[in-house]
Each structure stands twice: as structure tokens, then as C-alpha cells.
């Protein structure tokens, strides 16, 4: 089927009342969680997973994708108006966005963030449409050694790109792999570390773990630090439609940001956040007036805001073409698809074209909806930020409890979530990140299965990973990514990004 036929099929899938409604709901909920600090898209998707049981797989994916890209829109609003980034992906927007608001230019900043996000979101979706099927076809010819190398490369990249010392991330990834061993062995089904618990037979669920680390852990940290609401921009917001000069200044940053975001987004780890920092750094480098960055110029908003939206499309590529989640949110998408008996991987696009093309078209539609939705609702989002955290956090905790319980109607999973909440909180306190743990937890069983299958094929020869070209390249890249973290220049850069993100 040609590309136009596929697009037509995508439209026929999405343009049903139910799917349009869930696309809208996802985008709206995403914007809401993007606005609210302390509740991110990962925790929201985890919480909504049980509700998607009863939906068709395509409707479920449309809803969850809407939350992911909607959060990128929402995060920018509070960055610009309140100097509180709703998401880590909007941290860099604070630098120029908030300064613009202080100078009475909140309207153009919000406007260009929304238009830039829309343009980049659309370009990102086109990229996804082109690259995912290509990579999917290429992935058909690879075997267990290559898959093992992909998981090793993915994990090393996640650890080398995470904030703080590399050893911390390596420990978290190893702990995640160990937790991934709990339950049935992926080859023989032999029970490991279950100690008679029925709940653990299928392994430690990603939802209780993700909600524990990112939901409960974050709330505990905010409760402790008594989150302030910052100074809220009070003046009336006017001129949301950027002027010709704003467009002229923002055009290339948006285009560059879209490309940077998309390609950086494909990489595993906190790639969406990294894309925004990369875009900002590049805009500063190519600018004729780099000294003005940080003083409230529109290029500093346009580039990163475009980058974070197109990066969302990029992060879908490893999942839909290789079956490998690039970040925590994608790991939850993997969970959502598997709940419906769908295994993402090289055959995903050919076996489930309705889901893939439905997702693509829903992202076009969702981006357009967000553009229309976001600008008139800015006043409501700002009022929401004013709700005291003391009232908000019990509600977030209640949502976490409902989300985890309704997964399997099992109280033990609430306890697992709470244990991982404490684990997540303590980790934050001593500078350990949760993302490598969760990615390793998801990739662990696949890594183990591919390692054992490869060793069976090669009759115990570890050289199989270094003699086949694709796996050799990936193993080499994995090694390079680890060695890079030992270089002083890279270390310094990581520390800087870590400080900025805080």
C-alpha cells in the first residue's frame, strides 16, 4: 500500500467520534499534567493504563500519545508565565520565556511556543512516518545478537546521558536488571526470586514501579521542600499571534529545533530534555547576538519548544520499529500495547498498520487541537498553578493509589508502589536517577533472552557479538558512550546540564 493509502487509512481510523474524543482528552490531560509540576506524563500514563484495558488498542494509544505530546505544550506555559517548568523538557524555556513575560512580551512568547510546537510536532510526525517503516524493514533481518547489542547500547547510552556521576546511573541500571530477573525466567519459565508470592510470578510490574518512583517519590520530595508557587505573571496577556518580526526571528530556530529534536529524540534516555538543551546551545552558537540569550529573546523560546515537540515523535521510532522503549514513557507504551496482546517490533507496522497510521494521524490532529486549545486556555492553566501544593498532593496520591489498584485489583501492588516511592525519594536525595532503573527493568528480560539465545547459537562463543557487523558496531558505540563519560570535558558538561535541570 502506498503512503497516501496509508494516510487515508490513518484518517479513517482516527476520524470516529470515540477516537477524536480520546485524542482531544489525551491532549487536554497532557497539557494539564504538563502545567502541574509534580505530576508528569509518565505517572499519568501509568495511572491511565488500567482504564485503557476496555478500549480498542488504537484508541488507547491515541489517548496515551496525546498525554505525552500535550505535556510538552503545557510545560512551556508555566515556564514562561511563572518560571516554574511543569516538565524537565521546559526548563530551558524559563531562561528567555520568563524574561520575555517580565518585559511584557508574554503573549508572543506563548504564541511562538504554541506555533513552534505545532510546526515541529507536524515535522516530527512526518519524520516518524518516513523513518519508522524503513527501520522496521531493516530490523527484520537482524537476530538475537543484534538485539542484545541494541539493548546494551540503549542502556549504556541511558546511563551515560543521565545526570550526575556515571557510577550512580550504572548502579541504577544494574538494580533495574536485577529487578527484571524477578518472576519467570524468559527462556524456561523457571521461577526466580518470587518467594511464593503470586503477585511476583509475572515479575515486578512497570506501572507500580514507575508510579512509585515518579509519582510517590516526586510527591514526597515536594512535600519535604514545601514547593513554592513562584511569582505569577499578573498582567493581561495580549498579542498571542506573533508579529512578522517575531516570525522572522523564530523561523530558523523552529526548523533547526524540529530537526535536532527529532534525531536526538530517537536516542535512548532523557532525549527530549537533551534535545531542548542542544537546540538552545546551537541557537546561541549560530546567533549573531549570542550575548542576548537569557535576556528574553524569542529565539531562546522558539528553538527548544520546537525541539521538545518533534523529539516526542523521534522517541516513538525505536519502539515501533525495534520494540525497544527509548525512555520511561515509551516503556509504558510498550506495556499498554502488550496489555492488548500486541508486541511492538519489526513486524509491528506491517501487522498492525491501523494502529501505526492511526497513531500518526492522531498526532497530526492532536497537534492542531493543542494549538487551538492552548491559547484560549492559558488563563485557566495559570490559575491551576496557583492551587496550593498542600491541597494538590493528597489528590495526586489518591490517583496513584486508584491507578495501581485498578491494574489487577491487587493491594500488594499498592505496597510495591509505596516501597518504590520510598526507594525513588531516597535515590533523589543521594543523587541517583530513576530512569536508568526503569529502562533496565523493561529491557532486562529481552536482554537476557537475546544473550542466552545468542550463546546457544554460537555454542558459548562471546565473539558472536563482535563478529557480526551490526552488533559489533553497536557494541563499539556502547563502549564509546561509556568511555566518553570518563572524559573531563563530557563530565563537566553533564554536571552543567544537571545543575541547569535542577
Amino acid at each position: 500500500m502506498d503512503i497516501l493509502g496509508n494516510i487515508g487509512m490513518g484518517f479513517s481510523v482516527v476520524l470516529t467520534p470515540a477516537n477524536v474524543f480520546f485524542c482531544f482528552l489525551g491532549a487536554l490531560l497532557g497539557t494539564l499534567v504538563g502545567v502541574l509540576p509534580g505530576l508528569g506524563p509518565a505517572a499519568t500514563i501509568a495511572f491511565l493504563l488500567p482504564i485503557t484495558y476496555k478500549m480498542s488498542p488504537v484508541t488507547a494509544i491515541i489517548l496515551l500519545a496525546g498525554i505525552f505530546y500535550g505535556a510538552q505544550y503545557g510545560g512551556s506555559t508555566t515556564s514562561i508565565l511563572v518560571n516554574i517548568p511543569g516538565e524537565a523538557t521546559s526548563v530551558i524555556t524559563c531562561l528567555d520565556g520568563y524574561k520575555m513575560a517580565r518585559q511584557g512580551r508574554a503573549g508572543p512568547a506563548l504564541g511562538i511556543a504554541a506555533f513552534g510546537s505545532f510546526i515541529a510536532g507536524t515535522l516530527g510526525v512526518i519524520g516518524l512516518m518516513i523513518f519508522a517503516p524503513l527501520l522496521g524493514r531493516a530490523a527484520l533481518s537482524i537476530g538475537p545478537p543484534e538485539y542484545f547489542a541494541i539493548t546494551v547500547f540503549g542502556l549504556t547510552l541511558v546511563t551515560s546521558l543521565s545526570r550526575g556521576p556515571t557510577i550512580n546511573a550504572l548502579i541504577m541500571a544494574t538494580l533495574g536488571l536485577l529487578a527484571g530477573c524477578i518472576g519467570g525466567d524468559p527462556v524456561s519459565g523457571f521461577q526466580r526470586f518470587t518467594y511464593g508470592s503470586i503477585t511476583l510470578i509475572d515479575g515486578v510490574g512497570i506501572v507500580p514501579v514507575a508510579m512509585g518512583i515518579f509519582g510517590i517519590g516526586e510527591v514526597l520530595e515536594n512535600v519535604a521542600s514545601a514547593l513554592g508557587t513562584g511569582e505569577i505573571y499578573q498582567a493581561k496577556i495580549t498579542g498571542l499571534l506573533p508579529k512578522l518580526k517575531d516570525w522572522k526571528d523564530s523561523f530558523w530556530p523552529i526548523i533547526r529545533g524540529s530537526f535536532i529534536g527529532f534525531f536526538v529524540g530517537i536516542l535512548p534516555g532523557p532525549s527530549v530534555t537533551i534535545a531542548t538543551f542542544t537546540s538552545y546551545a546551537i541557537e546561541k552558537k549560530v546567533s549573531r547576538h549570542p550575548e542576548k540569550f537569557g535576556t528574553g529573546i524569542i529565539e531562546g523560546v522558539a528553538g527548544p519548544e520546537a525541539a521538545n515537540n518533534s523529539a516526542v515523535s523521534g522517541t516513538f521510532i525505536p519502539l515501533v520499529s525495534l520494540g525497544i522503549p527509548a525512555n520511561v514513557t515509551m516503556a509504558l507504551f510498550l506495556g499498554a500495547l502488550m496489555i492488548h496482546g500486541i508486541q511492538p517490533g519489526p513486524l509491528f507496522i506491517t501487522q498492525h498498520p491501523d494502529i501505526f497510521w492511526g497513531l500518526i494521524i492522531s498526532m497530526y490532529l492532536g497537534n492542531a487541537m493543542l494549538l487551538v486549545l492552548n491559547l484560549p486556555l492559558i488563563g485557566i492553566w495559570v490559575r491551576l498553578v496557583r492551587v496550593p501544593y498542600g491541597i494538590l498532593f493528597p489528590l495526586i496520591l489518591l490517583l496513584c493509589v486508584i491507578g495501581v489498584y485498578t491494574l489487577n485489583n491487587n493491594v500488594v501492588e499498592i505496597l510495591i508502589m509505596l516501597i518504590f516511592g520510598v526507594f525513588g525519594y531516597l535515590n533523589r536525595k543521594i543523587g541517583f536517577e530513576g530512569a536508568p532503573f526503569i529502562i533496565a527493568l523493561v529491557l532486562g528480560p529481552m536482554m537476557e533472552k537475546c544473550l542466552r539465545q545468542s550463546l546457544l547459537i554460537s555454542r558459548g562463543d562471546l565473539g558472536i557479538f563482535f563478529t557480526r557487523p551490526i552488533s559489533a558496531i553497536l557494541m563499539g558505540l556502547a563502549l564509546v558512550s561509556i568511555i566518553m563519560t570518563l572524559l573531563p570535558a563530557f563530565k563537566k558538561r553533564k554536571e552543567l546540564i544537571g545543575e541547569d535541570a535542577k
Partner: protein
Amino acid sequence: MKKARLIASMILLVLSCAALIETSKLPVGNLHSPQAGFFPLAIGILLGIFSIIFLVQSMKEKTEESRSVSEGPKNWQKIILTLVTLFAIALFFERLGYLISSFLLIGFLLAAVSKQKWWTVITTAFLSSLISYLLFGIVLKTQLPGGLLSGFFGN
């Protein structure tokens, strides 16, 4: 910070030893035919190595350079109160039922942790418990435990 990291590295070392002991109870196999214990054994060894590196790094860390991560006593109190409430609610969730559990969870956190006025506590707890029940239990038809009120709600 240094003390916390030292404690963490000790816990990690104990954990890696425990993982190795537990793995020794599983069939490990060999490179030609790896069994269920093969991968956990490799991971346990890796964790042990990383824990030792982390311990050495933590010991080398200068105390004066480290930033304090300790919470004030008031904040610890808030965290512990929040956790105790959550664990208690988890343990009695099915026995009490959703409506009572959610009311108690919200009410207690608002009163004891956020120190809200009593009418804010009662109204917010009542409304959030009822609205969330209507949304999840009735509209979205997710199964929430009836508990003590199961006679009224039929589940």
C-alpha cells in the same frame, strides 16, 4: 551527604551479596548452555563491582565539598506522616472500601500534613472521594472495593 552515600554503598554491597547467594540456589549452566541463574549471577557480580567503586568514591569524597541533603525535622515529620498514612490505607483499602479509604487518606493528609482548616479538610476529602468514585467506579466502571459500604453499593 558523605554519610548517606556510605550507608547507600553498604546497602548495595549487602544487596549484591544477597543476590549472589540467592542466585547460587538457581541452575546457572555455562556459556554453552546458560540456565535461569546465569544472567542474575552476572548482574549480581556487576552490582558488587559497581558498589565497591561507589564505596571507594564515597570514602574519597571530601566532607566539606558535599552538599547537605538532610531534611529539617519538620519535613521528615511530613514525609513519615504521609508514608504511614499511605501504608495504612493500603493495608485496610479492601476492608474499609474505596469511599471510606479515600476520604480518610485525603482528610488525614490535609489535616496532619498540610494543616488545612477543618472545613477545607472535610469538604475536600468528601468531594474528592465522591467525585473520584463517580468518575472511576461509575463512569469508567473500574472495580473499586466496596468494603464496609459494600451493602450500599453492591460490590
